[in-house]
């Protein structure tokens, strides 16, 4: 049995722990699909079209050629006009400022009734208004899988490119003594301000004797997710030593 397969087999043994929360097939670290991009209509006369973040409301800025920048006054006027246009199209609705808008009425939760759930939109006015219990479960599942993958990597030195049998958990059981809530901070030994990922990479390069992971490497993202998840509820205190 190779070292890797031993580790995988052990991870499989541990999978029973997660079974209660993770019904979906386990997510291996893989590159995430590209994020959705709003399709902005083409300008009819060579100008520039600007779109609201709802992905629907748009307007053409008169006299602005592609590549040119608006002045601050122009931009302020454009955003005001876009919002006004959205309000005209949604006369009885209120623009929700997500968590920061204390004046927003709480959105009534739509109970899963066994009926076909409402289709979920991804735009302003849809996302905040119509998610179901099932949506919550799906999101939680996705998140938990991401964290579980981080946990697997945290316990498997070879899977993150380690060469001497050292894995993260050997010094940091339950990701203890990693303190993600204290970053960014001046890391004296590195003589620079560091993010959590810089320290993860440092550990991978040094005690684990692997190669530092690219910031977009799904393994680094998963490790970060696991470490942060372990400190849920701890107050952020960046800069703390």
């Amino acid at each position, binding site marked *: 049995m190779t070292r890797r397969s031993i580790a995988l087999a052990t991870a499989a043994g541990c999978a029973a722990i997660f079974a209660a929360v993770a019904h979906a097939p386990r997510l291996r670290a893989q590159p995430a699909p590209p994020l959705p991009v709003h399709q902005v209509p083409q300008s009819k006369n060579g100008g520039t079209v600007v779109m609201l973040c709802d992905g629907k409301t748009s307007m053409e800025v008169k006299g602005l050629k592609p590549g040119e920048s608006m002045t601050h006054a122009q931009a302020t006027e454009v955003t005001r006009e876009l919002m006004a246009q959205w309000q005209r199209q949604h006369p009885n609705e209120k623009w929700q400022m997500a968590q920061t808008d204390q004046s927003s009425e709480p959105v009534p939760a739509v109970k899963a009734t066994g009926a076909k759930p409402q289709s979920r939109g991804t735009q302003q006015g849809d996302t905040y208004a119509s998610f179901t219990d099932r949506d919550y479960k799906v999101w939680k599942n996705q998140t938990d899988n991401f964290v579980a993958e981080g946990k697997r990597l945290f316990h498997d030195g070879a899977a993150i490119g380690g060469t*001497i049998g050292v894995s993260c958990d050997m010094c940091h059981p339950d990701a203890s003594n990693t303190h993600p809530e204290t970053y960014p901070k001046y890391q004296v030994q590195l003589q620079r301000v560091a993010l959590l990922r810089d320290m993860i990479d440092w550990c991978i390069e040094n005690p684990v004797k692997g190669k530092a992971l690219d910031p977009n490497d799904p393994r680094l993202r998963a490790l970060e997710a696991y470490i942060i998840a372990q400190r849920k509820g701890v107050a952020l205190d960046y800069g703390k030593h």
Partner: protein
Amino acid sequence: MAARHKSVETKYMEDRDAVLRGLRRLDRRTFLKVLAATAGAVMAKSLLPPHSFQLVEVANAAPDKTASGTGMAGKPPFTFAYVSDTHLYQRTLNQRFVRAAVKAVDDVNALDPQPDFVLFGGDLAQLGRREELDLGRQILAEVKAPVKVMVGEHDWFYDLGDTWQEMFGPPNYSFDWKGVHVVVLMSVHEKDFWTERKMTPAERMHTVAGLDNGVQSRFEVGDDERKWLSDDLAKVPHTTPLLVFSHSPLYKYYRNWNFWTDDAEQVQAILKPYNHVTVIHGHTHQMLYNQIGNISFYGMLSTAWPWPYAPTGLPPLTIQMNRADPFDQFDGLGDGQINVRADGLADKIYSLWDRNPVTVRADYLVSHGKIARPPAPQFASY
């Protein structure tokens, strides 16, 4: 990166060495004055715990004149040293832990006077393989003083102790040393969690090797061995000082990481009638001490890696060591000595690498912290 960035500790030690070199021509009185001033200056920078400049009261176990003068051979005091938790992989895979184990052996060989014996505290190997144990045996063979070997879970759970016992004999044994009764326990038995899960030996070992999984069972001395202990002690008078070596702490510290012995209370009950009992344990890789009734507990340092203190359950008497510097392979690690005194109590010297040693006196423990408090580091350990 390691080559470009020296750790704070390393720089500090270099600075200190430079200062000390310049001080060699001074007479002793002036030397101490200058040393104190330098210590003050460094501490004012808030960079290091006072441990680093602590003048150690007892650097070596000087023979206690009152006892040795009586000519009573076969009585304490005596000194022994320890090396523990080396976690060796095969040499070809991992040189880091080999280097550290050899460093510890050099330390104990350099002790003058030499200790009566050297205790190896368990977890010689990382994954219980023959090659790992054999490498450990070769390294321990370099120790000049006699070696007493104890088993840890990393030595045991690949083949349930076959190779270890072939090399080192029975895992639990006892002997008498200068009027002290010494017991070595195998405290890391686990109830069978592997058969039902159809684990291979390698999977079983790998599971036990990790702290933070809920799959494995908790450590225990077990019924058979507790019976053995009772029988062994049956002929030992209660006035005889006891030294007990166990790999896991013989008390309950933090269950989730197996900083734990499930039948600790039952073992403590067997030890309760004795006036002086000192338990020396490995496994926890940190400065750790405790007092429960008549029993004083000292945790040993590892040579491989330090562990953070567990989130709960830390014995209140333990003064936490400062966080280890991850940029310094040897920080927070080391070896140590135990001075068994004429009165049967035992003081412990934590010989921390790259920090000054810290002595924890038995008086601190048996007085439940009222006297002889060891110095606290400047920073909390998190």
